[in-house]
């Protein structure tokens, strides 16, 4: 039992929410993930002024607007480079990145690989609904090849889906987990663990799109906790992924790589030169 007397101890999850009302469809899994973000921040007693949530474009990327912490709604697929730049220049901040499967694995797919490799100490939460929801329901990189409901892919995509956990592991992410929006408290726990683990942490959250993939409401009947503890051995994690059906939830991998640090002191004179060249200062 921990008694805290600081201001942060008094902050409840709802204190991390902004006054903006989400415009997601009623029933969307992203409401639960928003709740999980606020619960994790409250449980970690994070000071809102020391947290930044960066996003790309898409339904789930609206999250920064709904949080009462610093936020940046970046260009499509480019949330990770923005977040990495921020963390390297301001290592004192807790930096989280939020987005969807299209933003993160297609438009920003290469940034995802490089972010895993670089292993900067940030946490990337991808709300995966296997569809582009904001643009009204096209197949995304994680869509099954036989999903035929979109007019753009009437015969299905007929190409292999992207397996985010496999790619993250192969690329060097230091923390890899999967959660389900059907369990906001469990998702909050995984996000808190991911933030606390050094290096690049990746969390895939299965978050149904009830409008364009209504069958995903049944995910809650399929997801179940992985019956194994997290491993620090990439080979063991890889073997586990060989038998993963994408519905096991929990933390798969907690690696021991040291996070990337730039090793350079901030060079204010360079910033000054840039500002002068852009005519921002005399």
């Amino acid at each position: 039992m921990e008694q805290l007397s600081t201001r942060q101890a008094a902050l409840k999850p709802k204190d991390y929410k902004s006054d903006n009302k989400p415009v997601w469809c009623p029933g969307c899994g992203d409401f639960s993930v928003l709740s999980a973000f606020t619960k994790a921040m409250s449980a970690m007693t994070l000071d809102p002024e020391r947290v930044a949530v960066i996003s790309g474009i898409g339904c789930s990327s609206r999250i920064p607007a709904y949080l009462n912490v610093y936020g940046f709604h970046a260009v499509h697929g480019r949330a990770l480079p923005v977040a990495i730049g921020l963390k390297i220049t301001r290592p004192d901040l807790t930096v989280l990145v939020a987005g969807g499967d299209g933003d993160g694995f297609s438009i920003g797919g290469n940034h995802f690989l490089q972010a895993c490799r670089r292993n900067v100490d940030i946490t990337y939460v991808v709300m995966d609904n296997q569809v582009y929801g904001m643009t009204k329901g096209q197949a995304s990189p994680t869509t099954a090849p036989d999903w035929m409901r979109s007019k753009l892919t009437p015969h299905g995509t007929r190409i292999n889906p992207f397996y985010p956990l496999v790619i993250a592991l192969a690329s060097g992410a230091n923390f890899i987990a999967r959660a389900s929006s059907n369990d906001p408290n469990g998702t909050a726990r995984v996000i808190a663990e991911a933030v606390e683990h050094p290096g690049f942490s990746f969390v895939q959250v299965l978050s149904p799109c009830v409008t364009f993939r209504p069958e995903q409401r049944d995910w809650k009947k399929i997801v179940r906790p992985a019956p194994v503890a997290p491993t620090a051995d990439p080979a063991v994690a890889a073997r586990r992924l060989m038998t993963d059906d994408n519905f096991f939830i929990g933390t798969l991998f907690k690696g021991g790589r040291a996070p990337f640090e730039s090793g350079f002191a901030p060079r204010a004179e360079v910033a000054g030169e840039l500002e002068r060249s852009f005519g921002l200062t005399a």
Partner: protein
Amino acid sequence: MKTITTRVEFLAHALAIEEEAAERYAVFADQMQVTNNPEVATLFREMARLEDEHARRIEEMSGDKPLPRIDPWAFDFGDAEPPEAVDYTATHYLMTPYQALGLVLNAEQRAAEFFQRIADGDGEADMRRLAAEFADEEREHVERVRRWRGKYPPPEPHWDEDPDPPNELE
């Protein structure tokens, strides 16, 4: 996992249950307001207010004694979700008051069962007495919500069909 054996642990759980219910109903009220379903929005807003009142009453019961700080995932609800929380995926922009009150009714029933389980279990006698009072109160809510729902007709068949949907698969 934090077990429930003392009065303060019980009150910490009860407070979390009521606060989560209030928060969830407030989210649903906002959803219905944003999607222009004002009747159901008003209903959920009223439920949020009532649950928030319960939460404040529980805070008063704890008096000057601070309640233990428990991480959201460490409560002993017997389930991943607090018993009175309605599933985030349960709402629909065309839902009717009857359906909304059906969700509330189920939530109140789950809360009554949870408190009764504590009342029937082990632990401090004072805590079990309090849990029995809470269970009685939740059962009273169940009856009240049932009467409230009785004022509305069940939904028509095909209630979720929208001739001009805001979102259509392209």
